[in-house]
């Protein structure tokens, strides 16, 4: 596959280049989809929809980087679609339909419980948390993906974190961790770190 000599790769040979794009990025996108919808089967469904729409728009996307951004945007929009939530019967719930995964008890917090509370958040708040704290997008980048104002991202994020703190406190976590209270500091800093890179950047 020839690449342009300068700048990003361009999309010329449709099907083959698309297959390469999917092979390289689908695992990461599937992970994001799962965090948005909470179920692997639904995540595959959402990802398939996003990739189908991406291929429809493939030639006009122009660049691989644009394609991934486009796919992510369609992914998030589809996952948070009210209709899709209706269809799959997703609801904010205290009851998870799937068993807990992994050892979640190292550290001060049972991560299974935290994940349960994350899943109970409204879809849009959950999407903001996933984009900010898993995808490590800035507020501006998150706003662009969601197609909303930066202020909306900030308020969704703040409300989501506040809800999590409240529910964890109700679960008795606050008593064990006094510093669970909101930390001073701007939320407009990029939430970038190294924790997820080894997981996120892995190809399929």
């Amino acid at each position: 596959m020839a690449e342009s000599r300068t700048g990003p790769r361009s999309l010329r040979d449709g099907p083959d280049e698309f297959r390469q794009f999917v092979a390289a990025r689908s695992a990461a996108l599937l992970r994001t989809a799962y965090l948005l919808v909470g179920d692997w089967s639904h995540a595959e469904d959402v990802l398939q929809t996003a990739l189908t729409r991406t291929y429809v728009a493939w030639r006009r996307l122009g660049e691989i980087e644009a394609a991934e951004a486009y796919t992510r945007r369609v992914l998030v929009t589809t996952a948070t679609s009210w209709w899709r939530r209706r269809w799959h019967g997703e609801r904010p719930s205290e009851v998870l339909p799937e068993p807990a995964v992994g050892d979640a008890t190292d550290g001060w917090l049972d991560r299974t419980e935290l994940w349960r509370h994350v899943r109970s958040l409204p879809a849009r708040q959950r999407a903001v948390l996933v984009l900010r704290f898993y995808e490590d997008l800035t507020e501006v980048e998150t706003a662009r993906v969601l197609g909303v104002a930066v202020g909306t991202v900030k308020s969704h994020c703040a409300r989501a974190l506040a809800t999590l703190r409240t529910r964890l406190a109700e679960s008795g976590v606050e008593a064990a961790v006094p510093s669970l209270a909101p930390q001073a500091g701007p939320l407009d800093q990029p939430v970038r770190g190294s924790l997820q890179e080894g997981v996120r950047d892995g190809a399929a």
Partner: protein
Amino acid sequence: MGLLEDELRRTLADRVASPPAVEHLADRAIAGAARLRRGRALAASLATAALVALAGGAAVAIVGDPPREHTAIPGPSASVAPVPPVAGLPTDVLVLDAAGRGWILTRDGDSVPLREAAAQAWRVDDGWLVVSADGRRLWLVTGSGSRTTLVEGESVMVSEGTAQRPGIQVAWAAGGVLRLGTFVDGRIDNPVTATGVRAASGVNLRPWRVVGETLVLAGTTIGGGLDVWDYWTPARGEFVPSGTGSANPAGLLAVLGVSGNRALGISANGPGDTSGCLGEFDPDGLVPLRSACTHTFSVGVDVGIVPSPDGRWWAVIRTGGVALYDADSVWTGASPVRTWATAAVAVGWRDGSTLFALDKAGTVVTLSAAAASPLATLPLPPHVWPVLPIPDLRS
């Protein structure tokens, strides 16, 4: 960065540490895209179709995108032959074939081609009113399949008439301009117009349904779901957005159906709510009139309320099935009279006590208020994508 934020990042990473392998994503996407192009952006427009399809119709409510179980992407040998009629249907049904073309299968045993994908249809005296898959055009289609475009806009709506606005009501919106007229003798009569039809938050509003003398409007914020509600009562003059920049008039979370000249839905208790009490609203103002908090209704769980033609029963479409409520005792907290484990895409009423549901697998299920189990099931032809049952608005 706080402890919670750190733990959140670790938690999210842990959850996806071992994703399952998924095969053939690219091939399925390529095949699906080809089908989309043939079917005029079918998948994208069906999300719109779901929005449009909720915008009216007698005694039918639908939810969600078409059943995925019945939408396996066809291979190169997929049939593009005419869709055969189906004997014994309890109602007309709108379907799509493998090439993305629309068809009407009638309960009289006919099969009417539409040539394009369609989002919703209504049976009228002259044939069918059909909304295009992109939600922008309203056609009048005759039994032979001939088609006339009646209106065109960004969104169109057909709604059963009311005592205050008799006759089949048609509304269409474009660029913030909304028109509402009556379908008479194959044309739209006496349209009235409102301008600046946007929510206080700036969200575009689409016509949802005529209730009493009021046109209920709906819009979406993020993601395409109906989560913004407003109204226009033509007799009071121009449209004025209600609310204060937040999504909805105070006390309203979602509208789920109509009973007489009242809207039925979910009363919100506070901002950010996704559940609330069953509520009844005056459509003129979307003002709460009464509520029953022994019934908790949730967005995404309870997705439609469809009263029977005589108002005696309510069919409630919810996650996991259909529930039947006595319309009189529901306000005093009575439990459902019946519950059926039918994963319904849409329900409609055949008569005062018999209803049908279209399930995810493309099966038409006949239910009765008098029976705990379905009376009959009838599958649709293979390689056909079910869209909706078609309400009968004939005089």
